[in-house]
């Protein structure tokens, strides 16, 4: 939208004389979310918002302002109020000049007009996933369907000006049958009715897959982790791969150097900004640097930290196109798939536990990567390749280095996962890991 670029240009033009660098990032959003409980909507939420962020630098001082206001005069008034701060604070340890504009090849195909149509009646797509879950035997469902029309505009005093639009479909559903439940999720820039139905179908399937409870004693088990679990854990790995996380003590990568083997050779994790179907598609980062796909871990070897200009300058490397003005961030994640079908992976597991969903991952120590996370929904005990019951809410308690090294196999099919516990969209397979510590309370 020209109007938004003009807003950015107006702000940059008014401020450029007073600062060394000015960048304006504007995000506009028209979004609807249907939230379900007990198989019906609890609320239908909408957002019509404009968020403006400003990066101002002067003599290596860095000031970042975030406004959830749409009027340029409000922004300029607020800048005036705080501008004297720049004179008084000291230089930033992570200062770097904004990069000179480079040619950006815009990713095509990230906007789907069907999403805009669906926003007028979000009930239709919602019903698809509800019906699919109920047809698998679920008794009730909860979840959300989110549809969004987003625009992102960046204007900098270095002469960078660009904008891109994307649409978003995020669907996840939790299905219940008696005391058991199953959950599935999907995220895309496009409406795909089959994928949305699949969310309901898999949630319903996992809720109904067994009516037996099984006991599990704490100990080491071989486990299959579903793409929801893998997505959640890879979100943490990718967060820790941000160079700022390393500098700030929130990363196991403090202990490693690029080239170190840190995981099973089966693991390749790629930051994927340029896939037009993944929700956080981006052609340029928040500094105007063109994005590109890059491995964080390739064949088990630690490959890249994610950088913006500031962290790259500090550590003597080049930006990886992952700005975030302060925090470099992954865009989307993609894992290299394996070669097995899902049933073959379960056969490989033979005896162990399939954990289909998790939540509440917390770390005791980011530097060591020690963490635990709690299973929810179907956690299935497998004996001789057959599901014999649900072990309930057990806990994975291990460290990321241990877990990543214990990965043995993956499925060839991947799923595009996005939900409450997977905020960086992740294309992930099912993963088989050996010898994983599972715990539960004694009393």
């Amino acid at each position, binding site marked *: 939208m020209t109007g938004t670029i003009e807003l950015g240009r107006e702000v940059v033009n008014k401020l450029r004389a007073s600062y060394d660098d000015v960048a304006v990032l504007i995000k506009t959003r028209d979004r609807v979310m249907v939230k379900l409980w007990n198989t019906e*909507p*609890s609320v*239908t939420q909408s957002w019509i918002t404009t968020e403006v962020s400003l990066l101002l630098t002067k003599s290596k001082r860095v000031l970042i302002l975030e406004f959830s206001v749409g009027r340029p005069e409000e922004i300029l008034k607020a800048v005036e109020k*705080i501008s004297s701060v720049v004179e008084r604070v000291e230089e930033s*340890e992570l200062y770097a000049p904004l990069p000179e504009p480079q040619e950006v090849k815009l990713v095509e195909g990230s906007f789907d007009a069907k999403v805009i149509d669906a926003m007028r009646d979000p009930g239709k797509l919602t019903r698809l996933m509800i019906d699919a879950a109920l047809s698998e035997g679920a008794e009730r469902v909860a979840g959300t369907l989110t549809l969004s029309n987003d625009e992102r505009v960046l204007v900098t005093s270095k002469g960078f000006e660009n904008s891109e639009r994307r649409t978003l479909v995020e669907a996840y559903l939790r299905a219940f049958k008696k005391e058991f439940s199953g959950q599935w999720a999907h995220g895309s820039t496009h409406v795909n009715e089959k994928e949305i139905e699949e969310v309901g179908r898999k949630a319903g399937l996992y809720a109904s897959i067994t009516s037996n409870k099984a006991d599990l004693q704490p100990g080491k088990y071989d486990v299959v982790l579903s793409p929801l679990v893998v997505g959640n854990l890879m979100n943490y790995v990718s967060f820790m791969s941000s160079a700022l996380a390393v500098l*700030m003590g*929130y990363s196991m990568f403090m202990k490693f150097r690029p080239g170190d083997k840190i995981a099973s050779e089966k693991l390749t994790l790629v930051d994927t900004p340029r896939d037009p179907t993944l929700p956080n598609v981006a052609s340029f980062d928040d500094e105007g640097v063109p994005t590109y796909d890059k491995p964080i871990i390739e064949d088990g070897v630690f490959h890249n930290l994610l950088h913006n200009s500031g962290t790259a300058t500090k550590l003597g490397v080049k930006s990886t196109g992952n700005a975030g003005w302060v925090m470099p961030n992954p865009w989307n994640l993609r894992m290299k798939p394996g070669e097995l079908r899902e049933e073959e992976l379960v056969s490989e597991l033979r005896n162990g536990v399939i954990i289909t969903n998790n939540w*509440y991952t917390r770390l*005791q120590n980011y530097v060591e990567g020690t963490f635990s996370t709690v299973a929810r929904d179907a956690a299935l005990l497998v004996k001789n390749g057959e599901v014999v019951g649900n072990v309930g809410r057990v806990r994975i308690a291990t460290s990321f280095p241990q877990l990543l090294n214990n990965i043995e196999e993956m499925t060839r099919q991947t799923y595009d996962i996005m939900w409450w516990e997977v905020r960086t969209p992740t294309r992930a397979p099912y993963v088989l890991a050996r010898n994983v510590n599972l715990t539960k309370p004694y009393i």
Partner: protein
Amino acid sequence: MGFDEDLLRELIDAGVAVGASYVEVRYQNDHGISVSMRNGRLIGVGSVREEGVGVRVLINGSLGFAATNDLSRDGLMNALEKAVSRARATASLRRNAITFAEERVGRASYEVVPKSRLEDIHVEDLTSLGKEAYGELLKTVSQVKLPVCVFSAETHMQEKLIMTSEGAYVRSRIPRIYVSLNLVLLHQQRGTLQRMKEFASSGGGELLKEWKPVDVVSEEVKNLEVVLLKGVEPPKDPVDVVVGSEIIGLLVHESAGHPMEADRILGREAAQAGESYVKPEMIGKYRIGNELATVIEDPTIPGSNGFYLYDDEGVPARPRYLYKEGIINEALHNRHTASIFGVKSNAAARAMNYASEPIIRMSNTYLKPGNMSFEELIDDIGLGVFIKSYMEWNIDDIRWNQRYVGLEAYLIRNGELAEPVRNPVLEITTQGFYSNIVAVDKELKFYPGTCGKGEPSQGVPVWFGGPDVRISKIRLGVIA
């Protein structure tokens, strides 16, 4: 707070005119400054301003919410139209009409007046504190290194004006300050230890002095160095465990506060933060612990991080007894869940910012303290463990099975604190904990947190606290 109230009234009238049985408009302005520093050096200075209006309508039994920061008349009317039309568009999926309990809503204006205004806190005040902290901590450590000391501080002014079609009018202004540190201690042979420490309250610049954050953190680091250098594994057999007030606060938040949120009990958060082991029929009857298990939720504590006097539906706040002498007693309600339970709302509806729907939230949650001193609490323990602080924790989605991994912890030998213990794991069920309380001391302390819930996730400021608590014969784990 300069916003055109007439425009909000017009919005309410327009909602009623198109058939809404309830219209609620909330102007909210959250703003403040922040600094982040690493090892005494500045990373960046930030300023945030989130200003907009959230409008909620109940129309033919469907609930619609829309938020906008286009505060023009057209912008607000557009938001109202979206709230109404999209609620109507999903009406075909509805099975039961949503209703709100009848309430006497407030007409009030209140403000937290700090001794020192947020406006008078300068960035330099925050950065000088960050520098002082790093300098002192470097002096504190002797045999270990301090490779990372991250210091963050921010001010937060929250201004709200809530008006509803039923006559609520609540204007509030609450300043808060937040300070946090992330520390990594490193020893070549003994590895690393990490501590995140937070301070947060409602109030103003005076808090930066009152908290004595540099002294508090220096004292902790001195102790944590000993834990890193000399910490031993916890006993393998069951022993009496004294759980420090920091963990008790988190524990009651997780295992009493969350499961007593009525929306969770009813399944409204089922696909996100989960449900609850508590079922409606258990309230007032089910015994979850012994007579020492009393957990109170109170938004009205002056100076608290979760302070408010009226909730975001305009209902006056009061203390709630979640667990009372071991019995599940009173759930946290908004007007919707109160209607389903056939009770009155107890004012638990809170919204993080203008773009968030008000949902049931905690405020300040604590375990009722007792009369004895800490020394009396541990006096007759032959062999036990005192777990003072934590890093890792989590709980399952029905709030039953939880885990806390100790950071600063000590053996108790013959009634006295002895050598440090490293990474003891307390993994216990909700009933297991509340039923095994032997004694509680009188030292009620509060700790700050940002509680996450809702979709999109909303983080709201809370306090949680309690005394030190002794539980009997617990088998502790270790990090595998």
